[in-house]
């Protein structure tokens, strides 16, 4: 039983990070139909910028703030410099562009920072908390709690603010949104900036547990994409559920089945789900119209 609880907590912790990456994917996808493979790089940036700014003597909270700002600026630049000029390009071309951006960001990180692994101090110390017989890192609470706060903030933003409703309208029907006077270009830029911020925060929260380096982004992007797909592409709550589910699957799979194939579970599950339910777990079935 303690073992079970241990896996549960570590699964929820890493799942929370996947959920945030998937949420970023979903936000951008809804607003612009772009599958942004550079999403994982913002997680890398969040961690790396915090590490280096903190190492330069800046207090941790301030360093984290700088990291989020850097992520947002780069997210906006990604939109304005690479996505907006490619308007009308095919889905595959857009995917290649975002992958190009991810290679570029990685290349930049490799120059600005270095190729080493880096760690951040845990926010509330390293003394494990004993819960139901399992030793839980305090940082896990930060990750899970932080994710919950982010999801809540996003929910309130989308449901309770005019700007948020404009985002929802844009994702429902871009053309109709433009007709009622919504500046969809601004909305798309906002989505890229917002998803970069979400990614950055995820990176800051998880780095004390998993370490970071310039090349952690790719695998995170792939798993975030898988999580978003698992939840039914375009569904924010589905993305969160998909992320948590993926984290749990990985933790329990690694714990009970095989730890060497930890990274494989995500993709086995996504393939299995797509075989059985081609629209993802929480996606809606669409009817072909001719």
């Amino acid at each position, binding site marked *: 039983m303690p073992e079970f609880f241990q896996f549960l907590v570590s699964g929820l912790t890493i799942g929370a990070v996947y959920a945030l990456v998937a949420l970023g994917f979903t936000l951008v996808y809804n607003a612009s139909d772009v599958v942004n493979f550079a999403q994982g790089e913002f997680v890398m940036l969040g961690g790396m910028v915090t590490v280096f700014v903190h190492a330069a003597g800046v207090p941790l909270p301030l360093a984290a703030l700088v990291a989020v700002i850097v992520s947002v600026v780069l997210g906006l630049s990604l939109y304005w410099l690479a996505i907006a000029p490619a308007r009308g390009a095919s*889905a595959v071309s857009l995917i290649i562009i975002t992958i190009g951006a991810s290679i570029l960001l990685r290349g930049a990180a490799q*120059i600005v920072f270095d190729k080493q692994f880096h760690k951040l101090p845990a926010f509330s110390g390293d003394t494990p908390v004993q819960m139901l017989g399992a030793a839980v890192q305090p940082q896990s609470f930060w990750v899970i709690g932080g994710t919950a706060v982010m999801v809540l903030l996003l929910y309130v933003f989308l449901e309770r603010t005019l700007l948020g409703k404009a985002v929802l309208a844009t994702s429902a029907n871009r053309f109709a949104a433009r007709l009622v006077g919504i500046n969809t270009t601004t909305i798309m830029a906002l989505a890229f900036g917002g998803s970069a911020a979400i990614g950055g925060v995820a990176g800051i929260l998880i780095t004390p547990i998993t370490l970071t380096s310039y090349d952690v982004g790719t695998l995170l992007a792939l798993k975030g994409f898988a999580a978003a797909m698992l939840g039914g*592409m375009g569904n924010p709550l589905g993305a969160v559920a998909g992320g948590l589910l993926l984290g749990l699957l990985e933790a329990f799979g690694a714990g009970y089945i095989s730890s060497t194939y930890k990274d494989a579970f995500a993709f086995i599950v996504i393939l299995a789900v797509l075989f059985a339910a081609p*629209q993802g777990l929480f996606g809606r079935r669409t009817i072909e119209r*001719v």
Partner: protein
Amino acid sequence: MLAALRHRYGILLVLAIVIAVLPLAFPSSYYFRVASLVWVSAFAAIGLNILMGKAGQVSLGHAGFFGIGAYAVAIGPTHLGVPSLVALLLGCLLSALLAFLVGRPILRLKGHYLAIATLGFGVLVALVITTESRWTGGPDGMSVMKLTLFGWRASGSDTWYWITGGLLLAGTWIALNLDETPTGRAFRALHDSEIAARVTGINVNRFKLQAFVIAAVYASLAGSALALMNGFVNPDQAGFLHSIELVTMVVLGGLGSVLGSIVGAAVLIMLPQVLTVFQEYENLLLGAIIIVSMIFMREGIVPMLSKFMMGRRA
């Protein structure tokens, strides 16, 4: 010369001449190596282009098949005592079989769902290769026995230049053959309108699967050729980034254009060679160049050039 590129045998002739004449301008064996690398990648890209450009189905995991081909000629002779050429054929067979089995459920999916499913397949192949280190040497890769044919050992970069060049010609010929055949038309039809293809009696699942298997065999063969040429394999050849590299070759050269895949491969293989001068700025520049070329040449290099030429004539 440009008019020749409109005909199947015209393209083949021009390509053969280029392959034959190019070595005259090569100052060192390094150039033979890079050119062979271009031919091999172009071969894989042409196969993928049949799937993506003709049949309109995306695959973000095609390096998986490339990896299977590469590791087949590595593992076969080393661990199983199978001759290289037999291992190469077994690799093709395994790729075809896997493509057939995985393709049946996967190819029912559309758009981003197909993208993530193929991506997942590719990542899984790469993971198996990285993890089963007893067979594959793990993340460090393994060495590959040289290809021997009737006592003759295929080694040296100029030898491999001709082998890969011949392979590319054969691959180009087959891809060009497909146009103007019922199969080729069925591919293009289901690309343009799946629903119309179905009501004209085309079994779209069967043809998608055929295109997927063809592309898998092309990739597998290319993987085997590269492994035998290098005398070495590593898991990166099956990895996600290599899949993306292949897709980028196809799209950058021009979807549906066989010639485009060769051009796309040439650009993407030579670019990093040129960029090594910039050392640590290599990735940064590579990313930037990919973005810029996709923005400004979204139709692909070859279709854009041919449009330009037609415009000038008119």
